[in-house]
């Protein structure tokens, strides 16, 4: 299985607890790019609603799920159409300082 398939499989385990469906089937993930050689993953996350109350948590769960995939070295998550996108991206950056 290629790296991209593994990433998608990992994302299918990230659930939106309000709509009780995963972020892939809800089409919340866009522009997913996976460089099989360098292990660099980039994606865009758009919550279901502009003021989604759990948008920040979901963004973090998405990044953590992808980071755990074997072979992934770097993960960039961009958040769009979200009232607290800037705050979300600050938290996402802080995730990179971890380990």
């Amino acid at each position, binding site marked *: 299985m290629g790296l991209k398939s593994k990433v998608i499989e990992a994302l299918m385990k990230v659930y939106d607890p309000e*709509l009780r469906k995963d972020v892939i089937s809800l089409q919340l993930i866009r522009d997913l790019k996976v460089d099989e050689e360098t292990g660099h993953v980039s994606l865009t996350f758009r919550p*279901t*609603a502009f*003021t*989604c109350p759990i948008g920040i948590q979901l963004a973090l769960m998405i990044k953590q799920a992808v980071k755990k995939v074997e072979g992934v070295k770097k993960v960039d998550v961009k958040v769009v159409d979200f009232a607290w996108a800037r705050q979300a991206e600050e938290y996402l950056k802080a995730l990179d300082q971890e380990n």
Partner: protein
Amino acid sequence: MTPKEIVIISGKGGTGKTTITSSFVWWLREKGKKFVIADADVDAADMHILMKPEPIKEEEFVGKSVAEIDDELCTYCDICRQLCRFDAIYVEDGIYRVNPFRCDGCTLCEIVCPVSAIKMVPQVVGSWFLSQTPYGPMVHAKLNPGAENSGNLVTMVKHQARLLAEKDAIPYIIVDGPPGIGCPVTSAISGANFVAVVAEGSFSAIHDMERAVETARHFGVRHGILVNKAGINPENESKIEEYARKMEIPFLGKVPFTRCVMDALVEEKIAASSCADVRNALEGIFEKILEVVDGA
């Protein structure tokens, strides 16, 4: 292309949201505009009566989970019943049971059960539909009687409407909003480009219109006010205009109260298509809304 979302709300129920929304849909089609219809009033959906949707896709909507006790594992220790803060667990003929309407899905009983006899079972609380109508595609939903999570179901309706509009490059999403100012309303106006607040000349409608306006302001959504059933109470109607002027809210216009609208709705017809004076009044209102939305 990013679709523009126009939501019609009111605060008080019964001011004519669906009458206005269906007229807006009829008017847009007459103008050759393309749009997705979204019925966000999932607790009491009624746009389908006038839109006559033909479902293309139906999907169950899973709401909160409810506890279930496996009687074969249960040792009748009574811990769950004692700790349940919603008094949802009771004993019947010596068997421990859960009242699904009282259970809040908090999972405490599942956690504290010493023999893992309790599990949380997701509940199907309604369905949402993607349909075709004579006016265009429509996303709508039905919540089961007494079911909760309507705010989430509204989020799903709007999300599916947006995905559809983006996929087919449709420029507008017209949302028939729910009454009140609770979760369904905040879900309905979240991210909208414009919210039209439908008021009427009654004291309760004015009171609830002000609360609906505050909700729209809280979420930073542009909004305007229109008076429906104008003529019933001119004094109160001028108070609404004065309120809009004072609060610097666009006053979109007045729609006359006429028997013709009742007759049209009884025959399941759209008010604007049947009643000339209503149509003329709404024409100006809809032009103003599009001006704001397209001008942005």
